């Protein structure tokens, strides 16, 4: 079963850490009493859960960028779409506990004087339907966009710019109130998920565990692709696309499959992120967000899946720390990170350790 982890020491370490965390953190949060030195606060649990969702997103980006060479600036959009699907479910769970107390309509619809829930909200009161949409909506968008783009062989920076334009268009669209997704404010004020209160410690811990499991499964799935012959062909596409075509592979099909799969992973990451942070708004579609997550992968080391996880944790931890301690410094630091990593650390941190291994 775990053949794909053979020789992947980073991946082995990651899965080990995840298993430990899944056991240890719930105990330290729920069993160890507050005030005890070893107690892990719910705030920290949620923060870690958020990072895990980001890490899954980073793995998805790494698969298309690091391995297949497509710099997608649209994964923030897939993430956000997954998040919105989850947000819609959570929104309909509020029921009459909203400010306006309307049992059928979310607050913002009451505010807009809407009579009923629009058609595209139908079905989102069911958790499983929403979960299908979490995967389906980003997947479908990626599929349609990819089918067009890869067939006509839009590559390189053109593709990046097109994905960015797509993200930007979606952002503009979601900012509109008429779209029916809460406009500027997005979806928020969630109360509970599957009947469990989102404020309670145990729900938070459960979400953390779900994120860890999702990351582990996502990692294994990507790893399975990477070590298969398909994975080799994917890397070959990155290096010499023409050659792959001339030995008989449908490059557009392969790209489309990987791109769509990666978008689905991003959507799932978004769905895990939303209940933990309690809000989803159009800001998630901003081009900055999409491009920022590329730097997670870059710093961790592209074309090493565990590097993506590492990068997501490091950059996001720094962000949490810096935006708290010295907010002005954060953008300087992020900007400098972009420049320095591309100039001096093309293989990221994972590349450093590899170099050392090679030297030894």
């Amino acid at each position, binding site marked *: 079963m775990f053949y794909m982890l053979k020789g992947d020491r980073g991946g082995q370490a990651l899965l080990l850490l995840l298993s430990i965390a899944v056991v240890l953190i719930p105990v330290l949060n729920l069993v160890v009493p507050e005030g005890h030195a070893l107690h892990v606060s719910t705030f920290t649990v949620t923060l870690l859960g958020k990072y895990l969702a980001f890490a899954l997103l980073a793995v998805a980006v790494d698969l298309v960028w690091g391995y297949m060479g497509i710099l997608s600036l649209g994964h923030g959009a897939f993430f956000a779409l997954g998040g919105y699907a989850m947000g819609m479910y959570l929104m309909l769970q509020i029921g009459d506990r909203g400010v306006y107390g309307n049992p059928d309509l979310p607050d913002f619809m009451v505010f807009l004087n809407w009579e009923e829930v629009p058609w595209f909200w139908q079905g989102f009161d069911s958790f499983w339907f929403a979960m299908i949409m979490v995967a389906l909506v980003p997947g479908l968008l990626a599929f349609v966009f990819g089918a067009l783009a890869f067939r006509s062989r839009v590559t390189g920076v053109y593709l990046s*710019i097109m994905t960015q334009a797509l993200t930007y*268009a979606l952002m*503009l669209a979601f900012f509109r109130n008429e779209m029916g997704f809460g406009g500027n404010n997005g979806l928020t004020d969630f109360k509970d998920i599957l009947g469990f209160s989102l404020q309670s410690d145990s729900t938070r811990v459960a979400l953390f565990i779900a994120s860890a499991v999702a990351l582990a499964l996502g990692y294994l799935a990507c790893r399975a692709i990477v070590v298969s012959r398909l994975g080799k062909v994917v890397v070959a596409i990155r290096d010499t696309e023409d050659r792959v075509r001339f030995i008989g592979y449908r490059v557009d099909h392969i790209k489309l499959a990987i791109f769509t799969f990666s978008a689905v992973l991003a959507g799932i990451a978004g769905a895990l992120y939303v209940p933990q942070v309690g809000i989803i708004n159009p800001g998630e579609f901003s081009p*900055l967000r999409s491009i920022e997550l590329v730097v997670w992968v*870059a710093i961790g080391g592209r074309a090493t899946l565990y590097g993506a996880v590492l990068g997501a944790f490091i950059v996001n931890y720094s962000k949490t720390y810096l935006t708290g301690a010295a907010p002005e410094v954060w*953008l300087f630091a992020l*900007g400098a990170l*972009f420049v320095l990593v*591309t100039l001096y650390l093309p293989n990221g941190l994972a590349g450093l350790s590899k170099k050392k291994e090679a030297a030894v």
Partner: protein
Amino acid sequence: MLSFITKNRFLPVWLLGLCLLPALASATPPVGSDAFAQAVERLQVKSYKEREAAVAALISSQDERVKPVLEAMLNARLFYTKKDKITVIGIKTKDGFSITGVLDQKSLGNASKSQLKKIKVNNKLRRILRAGIAALALSDPAPEVRLSAVKQMYGKLDNAGIQILTAHYETETDSKVREEIQTLLHIHDLSSDDRNTVLKAVAALSKSLHPEVRNKLELLKDSTDQEISAASGDALKHIEGQLAFYAKVKTAFFGLSLGSVLVLAAIGLAITFGVMGVINMAHGELIMLGAYTTYVIQQLMPQYIGMSLLVAIPTAFLVSGAVGILIERLVIRHLYGRPLETLLATFGISLILQQTVRTIFSPLNRSVETPQWMSGFLEINPALSLTYNRLYIILFCLLVFAVLFLVIKKTSLGLSVRAVSQNRAMARAMGIRASRVDALTFGLGSGIAGIAGVALSQITNVGPNMGQDYIIDSFMVVVFGGVGNLWGTLIGGFSLGIANKFMEPWAGAVLAKILVLVFIILFIQKRPRGLFPQKGRVN
């Protein structure tokens, strides 16, 4: 048209003579300040009849102080002091009036109500005053003043006004004013009792775009008279056709101006991306630097706003160009041949530039002032007026494009740039210092971005985020037009701008923008090399 004169006997004949004032001026004494002073004094008499005569004398005195006196009188603000019998204009304050002498135009401080006596007017006098004021304006030597005087009479034209206008029409020399007067008189004719007059007026007005005409014709359409009703229906149809046409012209103009903004923002990118193949995500921030340069220069020379803009153009070019060269030397040079890495690194630079500006100037938007000669609008006809700032932006955009085009096509730098972009190794073998050319080209593209910033500072907010608003649009324009083709950028920018503005009325601004983006995304799938692909073998 001249039929009124005989029909209306409401006005004293002397007032009609007024319209001939410029011609008569030299012939009729007494004029001048003495006459004015005498006339002002005569205003204080009790009898309305006498006062009428005084007003007449006042007007014929042709003194420049007459108009404020007449206006004050009309608005019941003309007084004389009980004690000294000095005629004054009073403006109501909290307790009493602040008064100004009519003759010497000096402030005489405050006076209580009891110290003043109002110079009263009745309806007839009011009419005379209004006509007098209009007639005065009509006798002004400047045609613009006469034109605006005529325009002010729209909608409040009474018989007196008609008589004045009709008389003035005879002596008017300016064709615009004549036309305006004629329209006005025709509009009046529409309410005439005489069928033929009405029909003639309808026929004459079917080319007029004045809003008042439409209202009147709209009423006439319901007339019981078949012929009038039909004629005004036809005239209305014609007018509405014209209006629809001008509305389209106006939209196209808005589109052109949006397009020129897009072209300005994108044209620097057309150099760095199109010619050099460098993805510069900091391009928007170079535009922003240009805008902030404008702001700083205005702060340095606040009394010369118009001048500061002219100074800002070369300065912004140098500032953004220098920053561009710095970026090229320090970062991009190391990343040639790795476009995706260049994209990421320059994005990092854009964040740093944004935050730098935010730290230095505050995160809030700065306001850059618009010089006098850029505000206001050019009126082509009542249905179409073009604002000067948009007009200037279009012209400026074309100018920048032309200069850049010449630089690339005609100068030795341009030749080197094209050589290096086509075949680097060969160019180097011919003795071109490729790396220096790279730096200069990048500097040129960046400098143009700075100039775009100066232009944008006149129409949008100047803030740290302004660059981000333009970067995606700029890339879209370049990619849509065809990378490596300056003409493509120009035509691409204009057509996107126009398409956007034509969609706005039914789609709304945001949706129009989304539709344009989606269109480009689909278009690129169909023609990956843009509207005007660079020629050459497909590789």
